[in-house]
């Protein structure tokens, strides 16, 4: 199936046709979802787009550079709090998002380097443990930074965060334009969509560049990468910084969208969720990551319907939807590892790594590691 798609995309005219169809679908999607599924689903789509941003950021670190990061949500938190502190009643500051989103990306990138610097010598499991700790440190700091000076307002979180707005045009109000009603969820949808599109563009361009090749070379063999003239320290820190900056932007968008954040929104489970999106969709492949983010955001929401359905068919709710969610989630991951270890839509290089290399292992023992 992937082969057919690839052939279609290789043909320029067919590709433009496909993109045009995709653009139209994406334009009407929030209104269609609103009309047929209800407003809650527009919100779910918005959240899915934020997870696309997060997934693409983590993909730079895990998918390209091969650095397993279990604390990625920390950068999301850093972005969210740097937006919030400068655009909420907490300090009475109300800066424009045009300043705050780039600032969030920058602050998150700095934290990315702070995490990256001490972990440069670590690989695999060890790196995973340190990054996991880093994620928890950030969360616990956010909980406790309400004393002696109240910065984060602790576990209560911060409310009344400014929405995105330019001039008098704030996205938390409903507008009517040419007969179409734009509720906040619709407006935010288009902002998030634009951000996701930019993130996809940046990811694709980076992948096919001098820097992207250096990241992939480090993933393949760090020692050989160094011996080939790559400054592994700088290139790895760059991966951490770039990946984190995506998370920082997503965090700022999330804070403005929700209007409320608390440290609870940035738990280890969220880090794992983003990692699952990347792994399940197809590590190192932008299309796969987008697919993974959308599927894993929508799946749990779809399972909410399980309770009323059980009631209707069986007369009683036997399995709680939230239990069912984790059950199916685990099952999906196990099946994935068995059937498609490189992800639903794997990258070319990763597929070789995980599938073909394993099949051809006997004759390629020298290099297939």
């Amino acid at each position: 199936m992937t082969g057919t798609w690839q052939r279609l995309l290789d043909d320029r005219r067919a590709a433009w046709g496909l993109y045009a169809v995709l653009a139209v679908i994406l334009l009407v999607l929030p209104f269609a979802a609103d009309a047929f599924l209800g407003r809650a689903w527009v919100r779910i789509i918005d959240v899915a787009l934020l997870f696309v941003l997060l997934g693409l950021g983590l993909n730079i670190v895990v998918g390209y550079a091969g650095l397993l990061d279990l604390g990625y949500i920390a950068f999301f938190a850093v972005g969210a709090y740097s937006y919030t502190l400068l655009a909420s009643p907490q300090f009475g500051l109300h800066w424009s998002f045009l300043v705050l989103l780039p600032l969030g990306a920058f602050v998150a990138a700095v934290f990315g380097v702070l995490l990256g610097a001490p972990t440069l010598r670590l690989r695999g499991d060890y790196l995973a443990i340190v990054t996991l700790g880093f994620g928890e440190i950030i969360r616990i700091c956010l909980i406790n930074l309400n004393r002696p000076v109240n910065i984060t307002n602790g576990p209560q979180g911060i409310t009344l965060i400014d929405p995105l707005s330019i001039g008098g045009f704030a996205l938390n109000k409903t507008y009517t334009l040419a007969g179409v009603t734009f509720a906040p969820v619709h407006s935010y949808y288009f902002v998030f969509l634009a951000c996701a599109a930019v993130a996809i563009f940046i990811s694709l361009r980076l992948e096919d560049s001098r820097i992207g090749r250096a990241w992939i070379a480090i993933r393949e063999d760090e020692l050989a990468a160094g011996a080939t003239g790559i400054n592994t320290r700088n290139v790895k820190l760059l991966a951490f910084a770039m990946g984190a900056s995506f998370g920082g932007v997503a965090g700022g968008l999330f804070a403005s969208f929700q209007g409320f954040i608390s440290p609870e929104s940035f738990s280890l489970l969220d880090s794992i969720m983003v990692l699952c999106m990347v792994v399940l969709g197809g590590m190192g492949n932008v299309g796969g990551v987008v697919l993974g983010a959308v599927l894993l955001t929508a799946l749990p929401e779809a399972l909410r319907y399980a309770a009323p359905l059980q009631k209707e068919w069986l007369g009683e709710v036997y399995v709680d939807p939230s239990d069912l969610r984790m059950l199916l989630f685990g099952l999906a991951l196990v099946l994935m590892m068995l059937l498609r270890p490189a992800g639903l839509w794997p990258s070319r290089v990763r597929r070789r790594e995980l599938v073909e290399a394993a099949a051809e292992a006997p004759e390629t023992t020298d290099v297939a590691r």
Partner: protein
Amino acid sequence: MSHAETALLAVHSVSKRFGGLAALAEVSLSVHRGEIFGLIGPNGAGKTTLFNVLAGLSRPDTGEFTFDGVRLAGAKPHRVVECGIARTFQNIRLFANMSALENVMVGRHARTRAGVLGAVLRDRATRAEEAAIVGRARALLDYVGIAGRAADPAYSLSYGDQRRLEVARALATEPKLLALDEPAAGMNATEREALKRLLERIRGDGTTLLLIEHDVKLVMGLCDRVAVLDYGRKIAEGAPAAVQRDPAVIEAYLGGGFA
């Protein structure tokens, strides 16, 4: 050929200990511009240790080495490459799942500049640089004789071709000195002969070669000068024919009683 400025690489009494073991003891040698220099010695003589010191993988305890006038002891591997030393590995280390062409393209990293901004914006300069990278990589694949395998993943190449690819990747860094760690290991006679021709061609095109080799026959036929290491000490240095007759060398290789 023998005056001082022809020395491309000069090693001054480099020592390296691992615990109680002296892997290298006061080793000094110099490699001249344009020659093929062989470093031989029995297993455990310290050849690879010296090689790792030169490549920036380990820092010598004492001693210095200068390359093309630059002091490099303890420099990071990428810095060593930037200064003009490229290496290959004894147990081939390619980017196994990248294509042959991409492997060589990675080798251009140290000689190109494009950063994140260039990658994202793809301005004129970046596009030109990228085209030059591809062009150079293709030319190098052709040079080592595997142009036909450009699109194939590195792991799918035959053993001999993987060696060639590794050499092409090293050459992509524009080295003044190409250091090869046992390039003939595991090769059959035909592959070995082809390798010999390739190395001679590389030298003919102006790159100095440093060869670590176990296979004395290959070294003797190929090298202009050789140094022999034994228990971390240099026991001989000179033309292959002279070194071959050196009693200390014969003893090191064959054990006492034959000298």
